[in-house]
């Protein structure tokens, strides 16, 4: 061994320095790769083990918090359990081998299905896809196929009573662009779509039928000529007032409203379709196709309702009209909704059998099938009908990082991506409920809500993981540096020193152990700081760069948007900038003005009072001081709330001013007494002197925010002056009296004493506090939130919900708590931090405690 060592030593000496350096770095890097490996190279095995234990700890934590060895089934997010393969086999058996089933099996086939043709499909399917082995999976797939095949999206001519199949494939959500030939037809038809579930309106001379353009606007469309839009003005008396689209100056026509049944009738000649209209007690029929100018309302007798006319039963209640061809089609698309109900898939021969089978099982005592199992089954069938949906579902809910990764990997993924998918809301499966469930088990199956990657939680978990990892990384860096340094020392050391160095591992651990006391004492504080202080601040900082906004954003997925939210502050035309751009600068300006004036009024108010209180004329200084310091001693929150009550429009202060006769004078001056409408017209000085209409609106004057702001600053003097008064009295009494005497002997008068002794000394010792007060007032949440609530004019969306007295922090708080606009709130808190943080930091660097360490 020694020989080898000597050899290697010789070799080392011959090596150029850079290659030695590389060796040390490699040793360090070894510790980076596998912690402790570098120490092993340095032959410090115990130390190596020490670091390695932490390495294993890291890996174990990652492994234990993850699910690396599990297979992730995305369908575990669905409720209930799957029906078993036996379930499927039994069904299969019952269909094909019904002669072998027990006698109490009372299922009978509907007559209209030719027996020999019935179940060939399923049998074949099983043969082809499952080599004759029935499984629940295959059954699900087959049911889906069966439903889709028997429910093509189709047009049904109401007059010809014939069906034109538009599409006979598995439908995608995009209906109209699959078959180029059909596209033209459907597009043409679509133009005249009439939703009969809506009320139709007839004009006075029955020359035209109208439907509402959409639920939101008050415009009506002539269903025969969609380009002719009339404008609806009045809802009084349930009438329509129609204007000529081309000439709005024409006298509008007022239409009486007809009640529309939505029932269509086909006459015996199958020539025309009539719409039934109720006008009070009389029933009319109107031909919805005839030339508009011949339009007449027909009574039943004229139309010959009865043997010659039959009502048309619509399955979907949505009808397409082809005006030119005089053909009425009914569109059958099982997945559309009419009046918020699904049109739904029709029962097929196969599905009716299955439904019957299912019903039998659910109604049999002893079976433990649950409603949620049914829901699960239906959703799975629906997925089979929509492979792209299924695929998306499987991707979303078997996300490796979210479902399987441990705390650290998941953490990094979370911070980088903020989660990848939004919550799922699966309710379309209700379209197949009618076709598969005749049992009534699922009379109402709710829409299935599955939460997605909730970005807030993902980010939170992510930060926790990342912060924890930071501590491990600190440990790792320690190991790497140690390996590097020891390697370097070993090279330079002589043989004896080398042994000492290797032995010193013990010493090393001794110091580590001794430092252990400090770490143990610190650990709870470190823990709390990491997760209660650092983590939230990081979180708050980061969400300023995301799109998190809106009521639902706490439970949904949002993404990184870079500096967009900050750009909004400068771009007043886009997105949130419209609301928050100008509002921000207004609020910032007022915040600064507020911070400045509230600090200086209070500072000099306190100074003034301290000077008065300390003047030679005042005996019983303590007594007066005790009274005047009261506002400081009363908790600020309480006095702020009391002020908001006192200065209420109908509060104590106004009553007091009224009783001493000030109100009469104010009315005479015209500062009070203008109506709200008049007040809106005021400009210039008049506006500044407008105090309210009947009462002085101290904190709620919507026209004259300047007045409110001034009042606020004045009220704040009450709250703030005693603190400075007390502080400065203290300073003044502690000023060395000999200073004054010396100055007096030199012939200084009172003013000079004040100017050259009192003032500079007081300023000197209170200036740091002045700075802190300024930044405190910048964030004086209480005064704003409790006294004015940010008002007047608070809560208007177009100005970002900011009121006239809202400062950044109160605005930010309201945005977070009341309006859920978290990203902008966060942007503001970042900006507040940049201001306040730098002030406090600057202030603190000047303190002795900081300089000492």
């Amino acid at each position, binding site marked *: 061994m020694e020989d080898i060592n000597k050899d290697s030593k010789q070799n080392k000496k011959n090596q150029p320095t850079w290659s030695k350096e590389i060796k040390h770095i490699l040793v360090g890097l070894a510790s980076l790769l596998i912690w402790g490996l570098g120490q092993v190279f340095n032959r410090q095995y115990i130390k190596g083990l020490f670091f390695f234990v932490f390495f294993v700890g890291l890996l174990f934590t990652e492994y234990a918090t993850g699910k690396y060895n599990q297979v992730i089934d995305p369908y575990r997010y669905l409720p209930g359990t799957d029906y078993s393969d036996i379930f499927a086999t039994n069904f299969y058996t019952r269909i094909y081998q019904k002669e072998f089933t027990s006698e109490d099996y009372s299922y009978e086939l509907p007559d209209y299905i030719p027996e020999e043709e019935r179940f060939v499909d399923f049998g074949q399917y099983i043969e082809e896809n499952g080599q004759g082995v029935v499984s629940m999976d295959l059954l699900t797939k087959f049911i889906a196929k069966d439903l889709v095949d028997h429910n093509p999206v189709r047009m049904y001519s109401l007059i010809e009573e014939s069906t034109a199949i538009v599409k006979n494939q598995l439908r995608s959500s995009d209906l109209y662009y699959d078959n180029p030939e059909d596209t033209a037809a459907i597009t043409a038809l679509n133009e005249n779509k009439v939703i009969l579930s809506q009320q139709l309106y007839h004009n006075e001379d029955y020359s035209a039928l109208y439907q509402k353009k959409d639920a939101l606007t008050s415009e009506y469309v002539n269903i025969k000529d969609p380009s002719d839009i009339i404008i609806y003005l009045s809802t009084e008396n349930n009438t329509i007032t129609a204007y000529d689209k081309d000439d709005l100056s024409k006298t509008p026509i007022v239409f009486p409203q007809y009640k529309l049944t939505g029932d269509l009738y086909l006459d015996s000649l199958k020539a025309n379709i009539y719409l039934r209209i109720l006008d009070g007690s009389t029933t009319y029929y109107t031909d919805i196709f005839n030339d508009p100018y011949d339009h007449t309302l027909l009574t039943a007798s004229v139309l010959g309702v009865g043997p010659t006319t039959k009502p048309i039963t619509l399955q979907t209640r949505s009808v397409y009209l082809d005006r030119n061809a005089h053909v009425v089609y009914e569109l059958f698309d099982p997945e559309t909704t009419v009046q918020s109900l699904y049109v739904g898939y029709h029962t097929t021969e196969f599905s009716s059998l299955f439904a019957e089978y299912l019903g039998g099982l659910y109604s049999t005592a002893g079976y433990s099938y649950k409603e949620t199992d049914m829901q699960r089954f239906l959703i799975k069938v629906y997925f089979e009908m929509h492979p792209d949906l299924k695929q998306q579902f499987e991707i979303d809910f078997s996300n490796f990082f979210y479902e399987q990764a441990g705390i650290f990997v998941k953490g990094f993924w979370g911070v980088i991506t903020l989660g990848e998918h939004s919550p799922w809301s699966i309710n379309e499966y209700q379209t197949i409920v009618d076709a598969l469930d005749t049992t009534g088990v699922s009379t109402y199956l709710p829409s299935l809500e599955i939460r997605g990657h909730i970005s807030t939680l993902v980010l939170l978990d992510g930060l926790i993981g990342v912060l924890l990892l930071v501590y491990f990384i600190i440990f790792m860096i320690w190991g790497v540096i140690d390996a590097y340094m020891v390697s370097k020392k070993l090279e330079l050391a002589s043989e004896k020193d080398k042994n000492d160095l290797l032995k010193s591992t013990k010493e090393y651990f001794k110091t580590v152990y001794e430092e252990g006391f400090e770490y143990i004492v610190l650990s709870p504080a470190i823990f709390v700081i990491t997760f209660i202080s650092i983590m939230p*601040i990081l979180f708050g900082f980061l969400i300023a760069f995301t799109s998190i906004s809106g009521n639902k954003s706490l439970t949904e997925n949002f993404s990184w948007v870079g500096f967009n939210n900050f750009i909004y502050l400068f771009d007043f035309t886009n997105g949130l900038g419209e609301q928050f751009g100008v509002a921000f600068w207004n609020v910032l300006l007022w915040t600064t003005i507020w911070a400045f004036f509230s600090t200086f009024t209070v500072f000099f108010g306190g100074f003034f009072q301290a000077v008065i209180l300390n003047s030679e004329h005042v005996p019983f200084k303590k007594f007066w001081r005790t009274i005047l310091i009261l506002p400081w001693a009363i908790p600020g929150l309480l006095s702020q709330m009391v002020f908001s009550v006192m200065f209420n429009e109908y509060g104590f202060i106004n009553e007091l001013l009224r009783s001493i006769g000030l109100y009469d004078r104010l009315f005479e001056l015209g500062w009070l007494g203008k109506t709200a409408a008049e007040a809106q017209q005021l400009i210039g000085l008049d506006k500044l002197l407008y105090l309210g209409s009947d009462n002085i609106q101290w904190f709620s004057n919507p026209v004259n925010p300047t007045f409110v702001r001034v009042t606020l600053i004045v009220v704040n003097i009450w709250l703030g002056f005693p603190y400075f008064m007390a502080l400065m009295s203290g300073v003044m009494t502690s000023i060395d009296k000999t200073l004054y005497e010396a100055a007096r002997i030199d012939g200084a008068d009172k003013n000079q004493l004040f100017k050259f002794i009192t003032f500079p000394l007081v300023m000197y010792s209170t200036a740091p506090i002045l700075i802190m007060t300024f930044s405190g007032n910048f964030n004086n949440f*209480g005064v704003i939130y409790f006294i004015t609530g940010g008002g007047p004019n608070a809560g208007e969306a177009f100005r970002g919900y900011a009121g006239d007295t809202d400062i950044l922090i109160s605005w930010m708080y309201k945005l977070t708590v009341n309006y859920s606009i978290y990203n902008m709130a966060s942007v503001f808190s970042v900006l507040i931090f940049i201001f306040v943080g730098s002030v406090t930091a600057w202030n603190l660097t000047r303190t002795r*405690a900081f300089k000492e360490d």
Partner: protein
Amino acid sequence: MRNLFSLTEIELVSFAIILLIVAAYSTLVSLTTELAQVKLVDMKKARKISWIPFFGLFEILRIPAASKIHPTEIANVLKISHIFKVLFRFILIFGVASITLYINWIYFALIAIFVQSSLSADIADKKGQKPIQGAILGLIPIVGFILTLKLPNKKTIEQESIWYVTRSEVWASKIIVFAEIIGLSVIVIVPVIYIFGMAASNQQSSIPVDIWPKVPTIDAFIFLFDELDFGQWYLNTLTIAVVDMVVGTVLITGASYVFARGKFRGKKTGLLALFVLQSFPSFMGLLAMYVLFEKFGLLGRPLALSILYIGGAIPGNIWLIKGYLNQITKELDEAAIIDGANKLQIFFQIILPLSVPIISFVAVGMFMGPWMDYMLPGYLLNVPAAGAAIADIPSQYTLAVGLFQLINGGAYVAKNYAAFAAGALIVGVPITVLYMVFQRYLIEGIMAGSTKG
């Protein structure tokens, strides 16, 4: 109150004229006396004749000076600027006096009493007595003043220099100083009385407009405990405050000790990190705290808030205590180490007893924090706790949230001004008294914190 703004123009003008005449006459008398003083004539006689307008002045001018004086001294007294200065002072004195009398006679009377007290203090001082003795005597109207004048002289002093105390300049200063102090005191006290009145008014949905109700009751206090969860609010807040104080102070004190005395890897980095952290405003993490609480099912649980307060208080307070501990000499530690004490013993037996003032300052601060904080509980406690009903939300509140809802009308607590006031009193009075009692220490603490660190 009387209508103060009902004066007509004629009344105002006549008031101004009377004021001017009175002030002018007083100026004349004052100038005459001043001249007499300058000329060192017999003051007893001079004072008497100075009351006669013009004649007095001429008489004094005519009387030859008792000793040789510089002619400019007389000219100085009769300078126009000086005359106007004196006139202005008298206008001030009589103006303030009559205006305060017009506003409220009690106001005037108080000013008068305190001016007299102040004068008496000055006189007592001149006589070599303790000024406070004169001040107290002076509180008795008129009699007190006479008594002060009759106090025995402790040092030889001319009667004239006692009178000097009462010159117009002093009068003007005193009357203005006391008008200001008393006026300000009223402004300071009125809201305080008002809140007592509001509590006694039992007016629930309308704001009391009288400072004191005609029929005071204690119904609001009863309502607070019977109809509202006030007791629960109090308990919630108290729990948060106590946990915050105890756990927080222990954590912070331990950590500060380690940072002040310990030598360990990462100390500098740690201190710097704490320093950076404390300049972050706590509300930056508002949403994060919400999400964190939601994740662990802590929303709507008051006690859980204390960990947030602790977390927020750690960085700044470690610096504060550490700064204090640094001032304790290390020789004490070294001596103890020689005696074989370990780190824990040093901490408990040496450092802890010496740092009681700063620790109690921090502890009081930690205890007070939750009482008046609105931001966190207003956000985190306004949601039902896991498993609790919406109707239970009010029972989760802290005092600050509950009181705020009482005047602003929340979703779960109806407006009730009297109950608000009653609650505010129950919370505010002990705190206020504490602050008043310990004001000196608190203000010293603030000064120390800001200038020394």
